[in-house]
C-alpha cells in the first residue's frame, strides 16, 4: 500500500483530510462574504465582481469544480467518521453528562452540519441552479447587470430570509468548534499560539455568519 493510501485510511489521516477541506471551505466562505457584502453599499461593485466570478473560465471550470469537490468531500467524510464513531460504542451510558466536560457545539457537529447541508440544498436551488440554467441551458446572452437584481429578488420572502438566518446561526455554532478543531487535527497546537487561533476562530465564527445574516436582513428590510 502506498504511503498516501495508508495515511488517508488511518484515523489521523481522515482527520487531517477533514481539517484540510474545512480550512479550504473557511477561505471560500470568507471570499463569498467579501463579495456579498459589496451588495449592501454598491450595486455596481457587486455586479462587477459577480460578473467576473460568473464568466472567468479559471473560476468557472477549475476553481468551481474544486470547490464542489471540497464541499461534497467535507460532508461525506463527516458522515463516514460519524458512522465509525457511533460504532465504536455499542452500548450507550444510561447517564452521560457530556456538558460537564465539553461544549454543545463540539458534541453536535453532525447536527449543525446536517442543517448546513439542508441549507446548501436551498442555496443551490436559489442561486446555483438558476445560474447554470441561465448560462448553459437557456444559453442567454451575458448580462453584467443582472446579479444585484437577482439577489434582491430572493430576499423579498420572509420565510426564505428566516431559513437563511437560522442556517447561519447553526453555521456559527459549527464554526465555533470547527475553526480551532481543524488546526488541532492538523497538529497545530501550542500554548504560545493556540489561544490566538481560538480568538481568531471565535471572531470568524461570529462575524462571518452574522455578516451574512446582516446582508439578508438588510435587503429584506429595504424591500418592505
Amino acid at each position, binding site marked *: 500500500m502506498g*504511503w498516501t493510501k*495508508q*495515511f488517508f485510511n*488511518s*484515523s*489521523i*489521516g*481522515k*482527520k*487531517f483530510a477533514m481539517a484540510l477541506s474545512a480550512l479550504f471551505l473557511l477561505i471560500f466562505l470568507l471570499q463569498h462574504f467579501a463579495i456579498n457584502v459589496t451588495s449592501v453599499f454598491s450595486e455596481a461593485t457587486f455586479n462587477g465582481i459577480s460578473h467576473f466570478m460568473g464568466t472567468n473560465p479559471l473560476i468557472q471550470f477549475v476553481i468551481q469544480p474544486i470547490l464542489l469537490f471540497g464541499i461534497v468531500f467535507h460532508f461525506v467524510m463527516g458522515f463516514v*467518521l460519524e458512522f*465509525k*464513531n457511533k*460504532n*465504536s*460504542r*455499542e*452500548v*450507550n*451510558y*444510561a*447517564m*452521560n*453528562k*457530556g456538558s*460537564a*466536560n*465539553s*461544549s454543545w457545539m*463540539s*458534541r453536535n*457537529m453532525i447536527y449543525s452540519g446536517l442543517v448546513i447541508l439542508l441549507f446548501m440544498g436551498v442555496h443551490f436551488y436559489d442561486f446555483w441552479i438558476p445560474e447554470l440554467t441561465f448560462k448553459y441551458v437557456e444559453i442567454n446572452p451575458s448580462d453584467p447587470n443582472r446579479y444585484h437584481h437577482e439577489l434582491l429578488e430572493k430576499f423579498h420572502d420572509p420565510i426564505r430570509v428566516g431559513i437563511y438566518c437560522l442556517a447561519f446561526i447553526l453555521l456559527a455554532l459549527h464554526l465555533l*468548534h470547527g475553526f*480551532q*478543531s481543524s488546526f*488541532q*487535527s*492538523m*497538529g*497545530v*497546537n*501550542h*500554548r504560545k499560539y*493556540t489561544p490566538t487561533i481560538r480568538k481568531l476562530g471565535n471572531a470568524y465564527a461570529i462575524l462571518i455568519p452574522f455578516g451574512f445574516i446582516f446582508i439578508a436582513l438588510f435587503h429584506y428590510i429595504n424591500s418592505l
Partner: protein
Amino acid sequence: MNLTLKVWRQKNSQEKGQLETYQVKNISTDSSFLEMMDILNEQLVNEGKEPVAFDHDCREGICGMCSLFINGEAHGPGEEITTCQLHMREFKDGETIHIEPWRAKAFPVIKDLVVDRGAFDRIMSAGGFISVNTSGNTQDANAIPVPKEDADMAMDAATCIGCGACVATCKNASAMLFVSAKVSQFALLPQGKVEAAERAQNMVSQMDEEGFGNCTNTGACEVECPKGISIENIARMNREYLSSSFK
C-alpha cells in the same frame, strides 16, 4: 448518608446486562467511593447474593485499575482524580448514584463493572517502548542534555496511568489521548527520537485495528483525565504521524 445505587450487572461478556437498584445505609462521608462499594458487596454477600465485580488495586490514584463511570462522568465528579480518590462527601444524602462500566467496543465488559483493557496493552506492545541494549554498558541517561521544557512535557505525558477514562468519556470512544501521551513521552526525549517514526506508525495502526473511534477534538478526555494529560499531545501525535508517513 443513605443512598440508592443503580449498578450495572452483567454475568459475562456474552450475556446482556442491566442496571440493578440497591440501597446502602449509614455510609460515612469520609468513606472513599470504593469503600462504599466494599460495604455494598459485604451487604450482598450477607444476603447470599453475588457481589459486584469492579476493578481496583492501589487505591491511591497511581495504578490506573479503577474504572467506574459514576453519575455520567468517568471517575465520577471532581477534577483530576481516579475513582479510588473519590470520597462520599461529593454526594448528597438520599442521592441516586448511577454506576456503569467504561463503555467502548474496544473495552468489552468481562463482568459487571470490569472491562477488558487489553487493547491498551496491545497498543503499547506495538511501539510503546524504547529498544535499548541493557547489557551493562548503557550510557547514563543524565549524560544526555535535555531541554527543561521538553523534559517537563515528556514527564507530564508519562503521568498517564492508562486507566481508559479518556476512552470512556469520549463521545466517540477514541483512545487518542492515551496513545498520544505514550507517543509524546518518548518522542520528546533523545532516547525515544530514534524510533519515533516507527512508533507513531505502529501504535496508531494498532489503535485503529482495536476499533476505537476517531477524535473530534471535543476536549472531554483532557477534562476527565485523572492526570490532566493535555490534548496538545494529540496534536503532537498528529504531527508525528504525518511526518513519519513521509519517511
